[in-house]
């Protein structure tokens, strides 16, 4: 995994809970738009925040295949939930973006591209899995000769406040994908939240100069060894509490060998091809463009929207869609995430955040589907060996 930006880690410090709001205030003073977790209508979603007072203190959720339920925590942790329904993709790779607009004039037409951003963004509470997802999208959208201008404009100068994951959810498997639960790169500041009976504090590490500068503006002191141990212990526990596991050994080859596996028919029986998995996936980047004109014929626009490989139009070429069956569409998506992505971009396309499992109305679980394919194959080879 490539590292985004310089990663100068200064000394690890402790911020007490009471002082924490000042960190967000410092970001606000530096004119960042604060985007972070907030309790909205039965879920913890990422939205614009006025300050630390809007963080979902004392809230968590249960996540299972096809199930998300908010619940109260016994403590007042600010980041005691796992991950939100929508990833940070919605801010950096917006669901709908007007690419250009044209207006007829006497000679021809005027072209204009709407401004992409008004304010620099601070992402608050980014989990390590989502840091990896942002890095993957940096590779897909932000590099090479054909950079995506929307991504480039929104991504530039984004301040990332990562929060290490001490509460993995029931559908999480970042430990299997090597993307968590500890942030290792791609942040300005990384926090570990520690809530004890008598104390509530954050162990903070700056990853950049900008991060250090923000820490400077927040009351803090050097971390004591026992505080560091406590944070390490929480993260070690988290790694062992993953709700899901995925064996990635030879995964690419496994999927390439099993293109005709009967499991694809089985999953197609349950899959709604509703595309929810791809919409909530923090790395699914596909879009379509719609060219529109108004009834006067004087105004035209090209609008880009999130698209999905689960739609028929996605693979439509002359004569019809290439992937007409749901079997073919599911197989294509899963194989891309866990096999062809490696050939294309050098990493898995999955970061183990578990969103596709939780937010699938049918509760289809990628780890279970892959597990089923691996299981039948190993059962077969055992049989052949005996």
């Amino acid at each position, binding site marked *: 995994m490539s590292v985004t930006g310089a990663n100068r880690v200064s000394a690890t410090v402790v911020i007490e809970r009471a002082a924490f709001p000042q960190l967000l205030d410092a970001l606000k003073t530096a004119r960042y738009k604060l985007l972070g977790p907030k309790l*909205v*209508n*039965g*879920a913890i*979603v990422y939205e614009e925040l006025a300050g630390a007072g809007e963080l979902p203190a004392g809230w968590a959720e249960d996540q299972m295949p*096809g*199930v*998300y*339920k*908010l619940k109260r925590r016994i403590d007042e942790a600010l980041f005691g939930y796992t991950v939100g*329904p*929508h990833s940070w993709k*919605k801010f950096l790779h917006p*669901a*709908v973006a007007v690419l250009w607009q044209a207006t007829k004039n006497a000679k021809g037409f005027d072209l204009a591209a709407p401004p992409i951003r008004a304010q620099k963004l601070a992402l608050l509470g980014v989990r390590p899995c989502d840091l990896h997802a942002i890095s993957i999208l940096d590779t897909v959208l932000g590099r090479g000769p054909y950079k995506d201008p929307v991504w480039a404009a929104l991504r530039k100068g984004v301040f990332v406040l990562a929060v290490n994951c001490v509460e993995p959810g029931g559908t999480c498997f970042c430990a299997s994908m090597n993307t968590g639960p500890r942030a290792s790169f791609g942040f300005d500041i990384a926090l570990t939240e520690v809530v004890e009976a008598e104390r509530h504090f954050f162990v903070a590490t700056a990853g950049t100069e900008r991060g250090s500068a923000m820490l400077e503006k927040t009351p803090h002191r050097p971390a004591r060894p026992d505080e560091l141990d406590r944070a390490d212990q929480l993260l070690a526990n988290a790694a062992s509490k993953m709700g899901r596991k995925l064996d990635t050994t030879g995964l690419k080859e496994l999927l390439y060998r099993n293109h005709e596996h009967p499991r694809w028919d089985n999953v197609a*029986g*349950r*899959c*709604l*091809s*509703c*595309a*929810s998995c791809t*919409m*909530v996936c923090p790395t699914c980047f596909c879009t379509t463009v*719609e*060219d*529109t*004109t*108004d*009834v*006067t*014929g004087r105004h035209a626009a090209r609008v880009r*929207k*999130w698209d*999905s490989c*689960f*739609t*028929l*139009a996605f693979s439509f070429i002359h004569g019809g869609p290439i992937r*007409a069956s*749901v079997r073919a569409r599911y197989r294509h998506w899963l194989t891309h995430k866990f096999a062809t992505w490696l050939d294309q971009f050098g990493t898995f396309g999955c970061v183990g955040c578990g969103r596709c499992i*939780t*937010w699938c*109305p*049918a509760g289809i679980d990628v780890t279970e589907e892959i597990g089923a394919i691996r299981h039948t194959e190993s059962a077969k080879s055992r049989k052949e060996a005996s």
Partner: protein
Amino acid sequence: MGGVTMPSGKKPKLAVWKFASCDGCQLTLLDCEDELLALAEAVEIAYFPEASRAVVKGPYDISLVEGSITTPHDAERIHAVRRMSKCLVTIGACATAGGIQALRNFKDVKEFVSVVYATPAYIEVLAKSTPIADHVFVDYELRGCPISKVQLIELLGALLCGRKPNIPTYSVCIECKRRGIVCLTVAKDMPCLGPVTQAGCGAVCPGLDRGCYGCFGPKETPNTNSMSTIWATLGVSRADLTRAFRGFNAYAEPFRRESTAHEQK
């Protein structure tokens, strides 16, 4: 299929036809407040009894057809409309799927007639309420009960400049997710037909915390069987499953099949 590009200076003639329906979809056209004047500029509203008694004779460049075919007379009339129309667009669940009145397709219509009307002999009615496309060739379909104003303007805008209209056939889920709406089924155990229903409404009901009623009808490749399995785990009875699929699009084939599968004999 295609646009209605006109020789320069000539406005395309628009007609609006009504068959068995409630008029709600036609009203969507009048409801296009901001665009209505521009539309009246761009087309000649030649036949629209809901809005004006003035009638300009056919043929028409664009015909918007509302309603389903329920009588022998209408089954004839739709052919006359087709003959007069360069581009025929069906609007709404009645015209595209038979509408709520297609509930009678599951029963014996003669029985209804005998119960409802004082003199059943005067009633001439077909056994089934059927969509326009069962009778004549249809160029474009707009789904919904009622149709979406945005989609109507989009389609007319496309026809007027001869481009492809953007009328996606994928699920409501995609519109929900693009709007950032949290899934009601997953987060609130709420039965929702969004995963099997065609987009186009802009996820109106989920955006107001109500499950999708399926008024835009079945999406492309709908897995209604899996949808029913999910609803059953949410505690929905088989009788209620039948009712859920028997809404405005009851006679759309995937919904018809699914509702019938759960019917208690």
